[in-house]
Structure formats: C-alpha cells, structure tokens
C-alpha cells in the first residue's frame, strides 16, 4: 500500500509537469514556505501515507488537504500528525495537497475534496492522528531493527527516537523506516498524554505572512503568462451582444481581446503582459449588452415582495405541537419582522485564478477551496476528464465562502478565457475590487417574521418563524443532498433546530427565485437566523420583564452544552453586576456543531455608540489549538461586526450600487472592540471554529442596544437604522 500511494503521487507530479519549472518564487522558502502544492519526493524521503513526508534533513512535511484561508488549517491539521508522531513542532512544515478526491476527500462530504462548513479539523481529527501514529510505528520498527532491541524498549519524544543510550532523529531513520511495512492498525494516544494538542503551537504560516514571502494566487507568475482583466455586463442575466476593442488594442502592452461565456458569467477579457496595461485596455472597451433577460429590480422592491410573501403559508421546515391552537389560547402575542441585505464577502485578495492549457489537459493555480467541483465544471467546459484538470494549491487571501463557488464562477471564467485564446499562453485572471464586489454571489437578502404566544404568566407557549429568501443550493450540485421537499437546509439552519423548549413551534420557508447570484457567506444560514431568533427572544424577555440570560437558561434545560457556554459567557462578563454607563446584551447560537455565547458591552459616546468589550465563550469539543480558537472567535466577531454595523449590497434597477471600500465600509482598527475568549473544557471530538463566532455578535450587540435605549433593531445594517459607532 505504501508503494502504491507513493507511486500515485509521483504519477500526479509527473503529469503536472513539475511545479518547480518556471515557477516564480520571489523570496526564499521561509518556515512553512509559500504554501504551494507538494513538491516531489526526493531520494531518502519517507512517505508512509498521503499526508506525511519525512526528509533526511529531519523536516516533516504535512500535506494538508484543506485550503489555508486564514482559519489555521496549516497549523491545526499538522498538529494532529505531530502529536501522534511525537515530533518536535519546529520540524513541521505544511504543504497544500493536490486535487485528488480519492486521497484527499473531505470525509464528511463523501468522495469530494473541498473546504467548508467549518469541517477541516473535525473531519481530519482521526484520519491525521492515525497517519501520524502509523509513521511513528514505522520509525520505531526501523530503530528496533537497526539497534536489535525490542520495539517495547524504544521511546519517541520531540522528534528523537531512543533506546537506552542510543538515539536517532526521524531524518536519520527515514530511509530505513520507508522499508518497513505500513501497520494495518494503530493505537491512538490517550488524550491525557497529549503533548501538542491543547497547546498554542505557533502557526506554521506566521513568519511567511509577516515578511511578504507567502505566495497567493495573485503572486504567481508563469513564463509567458498574460494577465486578463474583464468587463462584465452591468446587470445580472445580461449577455454580450457586441464589443469594440479598437481603443483597447491601442494601449501599450495589450496583446489580445476576447469574448468569453460560461454557464456562470460572460463578458470581454483584455489580456496584457501586466495588470495595469490590461486594466487600461478593459477601461477603453465599449460593449453592447442584450438585457432582455436581465434582472432589473431594486432592493426595496425585492424587500416589499418578500414582506408580502411572508404573510402567506410557506413550506414547513419544523412543526412541533399545534401552533395555531396555542396562539388561539395565548393570553397575548408578540410579533416582529427582521430585514437583512445582500452581503459581499470582500476578501482582501480579490478573486483571481491562473489557468494553463496544454496537450495533456489543464493546470490551475488557485487558493482552491472546492477542488472536486471546480475540476468537474472546468473539465466539462474544456471537454476533458476531471482528472486532467490539475490544481496547484496556494494560500487564499481570505474567502469567507467566496472561493468555494458552487458554479465555479471565477475559476471557470479563467478557463474560458484561456480557451478563447486557444491556450496560447497561461492566463491569470485578476478581478479588481469593483469587479469582485459587483460580480454577485452574495449572502442573500432575507426577511423574517416571528410571532410568539405567551400564557397568563408570561411563559412562551407558541413560536412561529417565517423565513423568506433565495435558496443558495437550488440549481447547484448540492441540491440533491441538501434541499429536501423544497427546503434548503442552509436557509433554515439555526431556526429549524432552535434549541429552546417551546411546546408549539413552527418554522416555514419561502424561497423565491430571482436573478441575483447568491452564495454562502461565513456561517451561512446562521448569519440571519441567529439575529432573528436571538433578538426576538430579547424582545420577549423585555415584554415579560425577564432577564435575557435567565430566560435563555430556563429554556435550555435539555441542552447542557448551550447552557454551559451561556453561563460561562455570563459569568466572565459579570452578568447581574451592572456597570455604570454600560449596557449589556447576550446571545447564544450553535452553528456547525460548535456553540458560541457572547456578551457585548456598549456605551454612549455623544450621538454614537462604542462597543467596549465582547466576552465570548465557545464549546468546540477538544481544543486542539486554543490560540487559533481565540483568533477565529476574534475574527468571526470582527467579520460579523462589519456586516452588523454598515455592510450592505443594494440594487437599484438591477445595478449593484457599491463598488469598493468607500461605499461598502468594513470594520477598521479603531472600531475593533476588546475581545475576551473562554473555551468550555470538553472531551468531545473537535468541531469547527472558522464560522461559529460570526453569527452571535450582531444579535448580542443589538440586544445591548435594546437594553440601552428600549427600542429594538429590526433591520441590518445598523447604519440603515441611524445607529452609528465611534
């Protein structure tokens, strides 16, 4: 098995023509290096499986199947290997795996490779520990054979194999270990013996990302490569009728101008040796568009339609008890509607992708989040087999979901442009910020209505939640698995699994089809369901004169993990001990099996508000790297705040009104609050942390503002409600 695995990887690399060839590396490979796909095995390397390569120089390379987009996969996943290998952390390097779903599939997704749903560490937890344990067993067997001692007398600690006075490094044993049989089964450590898991190992990418040497797609330069800058239609659904490239071709450096069309996008591409020439060429283009099928509504018209839909019966996503009867018997009812805008991901690295066509197929360089989907879609466009689409992994300069596009929009666009130029040169597609912000694939707009029924004592006896918004998954390859009876699981997650003990509860969904491309956005459905449910619960608490923390606590008796996270956040915040001039809000929400509770403290600063402090408690099972968990909570909170405070993509007659960071403002240094993160101790298998910090902050903040001024916030962003922050 060992030999087969190694052979297949070598075959892959042979097919790919050798990555080192002409690959431009501006800096020496420091620490974990630039983050590119695996380099080839060298003589004397020990590669016991698809995830580990130990070299004679004593470095251990962990091949990571998930993209590093900031969430820490290049540290968390190697930690699992290093733990069972008993390696020293300083030996560890990380490299991105090639696209190969047979070896590098996401174990939660069947035979598909990709990163999403905060699954990277969770699905790898046993797989990579077993990989490390197998390698360790082979190193031990090699030492036992060499020293003629029983295996039981051999110890391994921090990268050194020893027996009495003999010792050897992994590198010294690598060649001999490679000759050992791969063990059929391995025993994993008892968690009490963990050395690295639970400790804050330094990120493998920290140094390269502090000195400019980390390589992103944007930084790759291939011999003869041309940069493509594109002109997209002004409205979604419009198609190119004709274009005039005469002026573009007069620009110094412009080499080609081509039209392209894919199932996801269409337009005109200007290709030049450098970005600036291509951009000037693009700006000089004129084009005519067929807008007969274009989308022409504005955001306010869409919202009005959604509000009408919300008054009609929707598809049932959950039905407990008899809601109608409970409302009829209720002493009083409360109602509220919540509005959410489209949101752009706006990752710092605008979308980009490099495609090189050659006799044997197609080679892609990308911060690749969705290998198997992109391979299939690009193969279809180019008339290839999926296996002929080879993908080189790079660091992604953020994504927040955007680089995992179910229609492969920008990857496919790069392939279509390469095809339109007949593969004459490798093509690097570079979107400017405006192209990125106006290309669609937003977090959908939503409208929610909530209705609560209370008995004479103020107890919550009925809850009806209606959600209106576009389905993200309908019409994608995920529809068959995640859209059941018309219910897109991502539209109702966080609402249909509401943990609170309410005897009569109904959740209904409307999924109107409109022509704006939509996509998941960090924490997906929970971006809106957490806000609607957690804010409405605070409105109920206020109306019934109950403490928001105590009300949640009383409704979570059957959910001890939610309750523990809630209590930890409240305790650390000093809930119940008022602070002069400060209002507090609390919220708790589960997403991707991780539970997060947050308390926000807000004060007044003249006519604005200031977020003084955020206390965050998280239960994500075993804490593999507490420092990275804290980083992801801080990041999720900051990302959620950007949307809560001022994030909105709006349409006017179908045209996106925003274009860059001046009209799509995001959180900046002076607005970032102090964040204190506390981890609930746990022995459960780890769950993700990349997304679950995000959905909780907006409702916790809104609840603090409700406590402060007695008036709820029922539409985001808060800037649209006249609420501003210093």
């Amino acid at each position: 098995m060992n030999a087969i695995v190694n052979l297949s990887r070598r075959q892959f690399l042979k097919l790919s023509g050798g990555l080192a060839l002409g690959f431009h590396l501006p800096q020496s490979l420091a620490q974990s290096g630039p983050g590119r796909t695996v380099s080839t095995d060298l003589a004397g390397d020990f590669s016991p499986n698809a995830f580990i390569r130990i070299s004679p120089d004593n470095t251990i390379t962990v091949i990571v199947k998930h993209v590093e987009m900031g969430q820490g996969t290049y540290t968390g996943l190697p930690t699992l290997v290093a733990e069972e290998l008993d390696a020293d952390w300083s030996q560890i390097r990380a490299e991105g795996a090639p696209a190969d779903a047979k070896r590098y599939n996401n174990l939660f997704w069947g035979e598909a490779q990709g990163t999403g749903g905060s699954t990277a560490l969770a699905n790898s937890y046993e797989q990579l520990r077993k990989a490390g344990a197998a390698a360790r067993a082979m190193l031990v067997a090699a030492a036992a054979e060499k020293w003629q001692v029983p295996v039981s007398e051999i110890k391994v600690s921090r990268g050194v194999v020893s027996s009495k006075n003999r010792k050897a490094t992994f590198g010294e044993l690598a060649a001999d270990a490679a000759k050992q049989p791969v063990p059929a089964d391995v025993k994993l450590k008892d968690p009490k013996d963990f050395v690295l898991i639970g400790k804050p190992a330094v990120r493998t990418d920290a140094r390269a990302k502090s000195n400019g040497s980390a390589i992103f797609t944007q930084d790759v330069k291939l011999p003869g490569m041309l940069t493509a800058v594109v002109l997209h239609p002004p409205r979604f659904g419009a198609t190119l009728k004709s274009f005039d490239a005469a002026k573009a071709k007069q620009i110094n450096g412009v080499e080609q101008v081509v039209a392209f069309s894919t199932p996801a996008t269409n337009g005109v591409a200007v290709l030049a040796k450098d970005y600036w020439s291509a951009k000037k060429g693009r700006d000089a283009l004129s084009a005519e568009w067929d807008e007969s099928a274009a989308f022409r509504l504005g955001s306010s018209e869409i919202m009005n339609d959604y509000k009408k839909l919300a008054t009609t019966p929707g598809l049932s996503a959950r039905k407990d008890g008899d809601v109608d009867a409970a409302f009829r018997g209720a002493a009083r009812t409360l109602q509220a509607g919540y509005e959410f805008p489209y949101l752009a991901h706006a990752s710092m690295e605008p979308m980009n992708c490099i495609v090189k066509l050659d006799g044997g197929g197609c080679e892609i360089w990308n911060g690749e989040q969705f290998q198997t989907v992109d391979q299939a879609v690009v193969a279809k466009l180019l008339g290839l087999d999926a296996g002929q689409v080879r993908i080189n992994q790079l660091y992604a300069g953020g994504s927040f979901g955007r680089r995992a596009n179910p229609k492969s929009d920008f990857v496919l666009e790069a392939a279509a442009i390469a095809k339109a130029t007949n593969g004459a040169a490798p093509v690097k597609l570079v979107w400017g910020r405006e192209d990125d912000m106006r290309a669609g694939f937003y977090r959908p707009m939503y409208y929610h209505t909530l209705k609560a029924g209370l008995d004479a004592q103020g107890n919550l006896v009925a809850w009806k939640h209606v959600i209106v918004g576009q389905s993200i998954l309908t019409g994608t390859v995920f529809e068959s698995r995640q859209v059941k009876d018309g219910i897109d699981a991502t539209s109702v997650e966080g609402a249909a699994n509401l943990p609170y003990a309410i005897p009569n509860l109904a959740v209904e969904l409307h999924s109107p089809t409109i022509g704006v491309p939509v996509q998941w956005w960090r924490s997906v459905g929970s971006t809106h369901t957490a806000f609607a449910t957690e804010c409405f619960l605070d409105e109920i608490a206020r109306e019934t004169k109950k403490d928001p923390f105590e009300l949640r606590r009383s409704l979570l008796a059957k959910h001890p993990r939610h309750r523990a996270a809630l209590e930890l956040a409240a305790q650390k915040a000093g809930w119940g001990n008022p602070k002069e001039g400060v209002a507090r809000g609390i919220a708790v929400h589960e997403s991707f099996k991780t539970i997060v509770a947050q308390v926000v403290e807000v004060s007044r600063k003249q006519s604005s508000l200031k977020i003084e402090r955020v206390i965050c408690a998280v239960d994500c099972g075993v804490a593999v790297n507490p420092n990275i968990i804290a980083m992801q909570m801080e990041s999720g909170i900051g990302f959620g705040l950007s949307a809560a405070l001022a994030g909105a993509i709006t349409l006017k007659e179908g045209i996106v009104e925003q274009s860059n960071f001046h009209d799509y403002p995001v959180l900046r240094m002076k607005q970032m609050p102090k964040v204190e993160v506390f981890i609930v101790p746990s022995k459960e298998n780890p769950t993700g942390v990349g997304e679950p910090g995000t959905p909780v902050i907006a409702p916790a903040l809104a609840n603090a503002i409700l406590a402060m001024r007695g008036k709820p916030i029922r539409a985001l962003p808060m800037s649209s409600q006249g609420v501003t922050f210093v």
Partner: protein
Amino acid sequence: MISLDVNGTLVQADADGDTPLLWVLRDHLDMTGTKFGCGMALCGACTVHIDGKPARSCVTPVSTVAGKKIATIEKIGETRAGKAVQAAWVAESVPQCGYCQSGQVMAATALLAAIPAPSDADIDAAMSGNICRCATYARIRAAIKRAAREAKVQA
C-alpha cells in the same frame, strides 16, 4: 525606462509613467510582497515607504517617485523597527489569511519610526487606513506595543 531606488538598489523598469508603483513592483520587478487590494488607496494592502513615509503604492504613479527612496516589505526586516515589528507579528499570532499583513507591517513600521512609543490613539490614527477582513486588529495593536517595547530594549 524609469530608474527607481528600491530598498537601496537602483533598478530599471520599462513601464509607462502613469503606471502605479504597485504594479511596477509586482509585475515589472517581480516583488510580490506588496499586495493589491482595492486600487483606490482605501485598504492599505499596497503600503510601501516613500522617503520614509507610508504611501499607498496603488495610487502612486511611478513617474512621481523617481529619485525617491522606496522601501518595501521584502527588505523592511533589515531595519531595526521592521525587524521588531515582524518578530512581534509572529509572537502575537497576528496573521490569519495574511494577505493584508505586508501593508499592516509597513504601516506599523512607519508609525514606530515616527513615534517610538505610540498611544492607542496614535495606533488608531496610523492604522485605520489598513483593512484586515480577518479582523486581526486587536493583535496588531498588541504587536505594535510589543515591537515598541522590544525596539526600546535594543536601542
């Protein structure tokens, strides 16, 4: 052909004078540490130093910087402040996706060169032009303070 002083070395680039310095660095000189984020001086990912002052290279025509001293992320670690900042970035676990961090490091280094012991208000003023979508701001603040302490110890 335009001659430039980049990190103390005289280099030549065959670029039109209106080309932003960012693209001359990245596409003509193959120095890709300086990043493209917005093209409108709104995000700070492209921050370099021109005669010691932080500047957004995405809106700086290359014709305007001939004869000036340009410093970039590739060599900033050779300065005392730059070295302290980069070490503090690792010590405080600042980078996540990392794409904005070249610009953050350049802005922080310029701040420390101008104000060796910056206050929170100084940090807000100097760093608010640099966006980080991973929201690493609190750690950037801590790292700047750490770098200030360490640079003082070394002085």
